[in-house]
């Protein structure tokens, strides 16, 4: 992968990071209410994976999904608007931070029930067997979701019928507030899909280049001959499970220990050694910052839902 593409990935990851930082501030200052789960630290997975997908492919994520949506091209403006109860929000206020969907961008939604997106993603993949598309479906979930029956059922269903779906387990080492290592006996999560007959691989989820390569390979294989694959992407969460999580469970110094391995620092270092100067890197950050700031100020200028969408609050329960 050349520097240009790496720079593009860096920019995308920084935009997600800055978006999430802005969301943190908005939530903490009370500019909106509602449960919010930030993506800080895991950006390489969404950015790398989505870079390998085509427009017609389908992505299903979890409530920690702002980064996935942005990586699929959902504008930060419509996400800010969704959170801030403004008209023009991606779901006009019906999804909020944790349950929005953007089908126009091939983003078939966050899901606020742990593991519940996997069976639905499998259905999207099932449809591809009949609708003459070569659509690949990717479903992302956390390590905690591995302990949901829905995920095991979904993986077996996909394996049984050879469905074109990529399971991405983002292992950030915490199942909500509890270390995953305390909630499983077998620490290697790839052994479960393997037992179901699904090829599975552990990937360094902090390495955007490795993530993109892994997903690209899977996409090429799946498009030609179908059948699910599974990746356990090793990563870390740079903040609590939700905004406001006091993180009493987190050992002192743990977040600091991620300083050099988290995906943005890592890619900056890489680019640096590839000859991109500090000034150039700062320029990228400054531009990303401008993009996010502009999106936020534009969102704040949009009319509130009470002026418009409130009229339609009962609409779309049924067709």
């Amino acid at each position, binding site marked *: 992968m050349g520097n240009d593409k790496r720079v593009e990935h860096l920019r995308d990851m920084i935009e997600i990071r800055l978006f999430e930082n802005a969301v943190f501030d908005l939530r903490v200052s009370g500019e909106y209410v509602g449960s919010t789960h930030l993506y800080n630290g895991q950006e390489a997975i969404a950015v790398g994976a989505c870079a390998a997908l085509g427009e017609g492919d389908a992505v299903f994520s979890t409530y920690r999904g702002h980064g996935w949506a942005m990586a699929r091209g959902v504008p930060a403006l419509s996400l800010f608007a969704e959170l801030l109860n403004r008209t023009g929000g991606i*779901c006009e206020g*019906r999804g909020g931070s944790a349950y929005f969907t953007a089908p126009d961008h091939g983003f078939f939604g966050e*899901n606020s029930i742990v593991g519940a997106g996997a*069976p*639905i993603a499998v259905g999207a993949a099932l449809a591809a067997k009949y*609708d003459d598309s070569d659509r690949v479906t990717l479903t992302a979930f956390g390590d905690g979701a591995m302990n949901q029956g*829905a995920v095991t059922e979904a993986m077996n269903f996909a394996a*049984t019928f050879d469905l074109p779906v990529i399971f991405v387990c983002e292992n950030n080492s915490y199942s909500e507030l509890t270390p995953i290592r305390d909630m499983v006996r077998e620490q290697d999560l790839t052994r479960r899909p393997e037992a179901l007959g699904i090829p599975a691989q552990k990937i360094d989820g902090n390495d955007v280049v490795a993530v993109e390569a892994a997903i690209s390979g899977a996409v090429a294989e799946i498009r030609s001959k179908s059948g699910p694959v599974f990746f356990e992407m090793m990563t870390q969460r740079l903040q609590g499970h939700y905004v406001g999580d006091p993180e009493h469970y987190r050992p002192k110094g743990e977040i600091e220990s991620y300083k050099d391995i988290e995906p943005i620092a890592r890619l900056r270092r890489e680019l640096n050694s590839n000859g991109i100067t500090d000034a150039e890197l700062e320029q990228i950050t400054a531009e990303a910052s401008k993009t996010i700031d502009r999106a936020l100020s534009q969102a704040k200028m949009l009319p509130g839902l009470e002026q418009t969408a409130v009229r339609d609050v009962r609409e779309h329960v049924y067709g």
Partner: protein
Amino acid sequence: MVEQAGVNYGGAINAALRRCLAEDERTIFFGEDVGKPGGVFGVSKGLHAEFGNRVFDTPISETAMIGAGVGAAMMGMRPVVEIMWLDFAMVAFDQIVNQAANVRYVSNGKLSAPLTIRTQQGYLPGSCAQHAQNLEAFLLHVPGIRVCMPTTPQEAYDSMMSAHYCDDPVVVIENRGLYAGPKTEINIGAEPSEIGGSVLRREGSDITIVSWGPIISEVLAAGDQMPSRGIDAEIIEAVWLNPFDWNGLIRSVKKTRRLLVVHEANVTGGFGGEILARVVEWDIQVSHMRRLGLPDVVVPASPVLMNELRPSAESIVAAAVEAIWCRS
């Protein structure tokens, strides 16, 4: 083209499924044992042979099955998922309540999940507490889901067709006690009608009895016995519970001024309570109304014990007699 076919209840559903598969290539039909075995009750016999991989058997994984139905429907298919017993859907309620029901609303109308879940229930002998419940009220509590409970071959055919062409998730609750019932001539091939609607099963002037599910046969038997007690009952079968035919109900109750709801589900939290509540809220003047259902008891396995709990023609007549002669 409208044709006549002599079919029983199970055959009517088979005919409807065959038609959906034949005329709508978006249709796929899957569930436990529905393909090669032809369904545990034989309802899907011959469909796998005729339609190949569009009709297939699945692992015993209700969450994956309904989830796959939701996802396929979101992508434009018209999946029909069979859940062998409604009791078994309890392990997959997340996919019905938290997923299928929300797709349209949360996406602000950009997506929908036009999925049909075919299932059956039945308070029938030889079952047990996990195979004999009447659970429709759970589904009726959820905005975003449609529900019907056909009891005749024609109703079964028509409601399956309407469900298939409905753009929202529909749960069709059949009854295993009816599948092998007598053959009757039904119309097949007519343009599918919109979902909803009730059937006026008996016209009368003294009391409105609303019922659904196979207990309707007890209600009809009771209606036949009532003239000897001086009562002329009007009997409405609510084939569709969501959308419910409120107008038909109101029209009838305004005429009879008495209302009895009979359902096979137990009373507390049953849909009968909702019907009575609306009549009160809408300020429809009635001299008497009540509901009959199973008492709040777990379903016992023994038929001897089961019979003790189920409303019968006799108890329905007694309730009507009380409504008219003791309370008027």
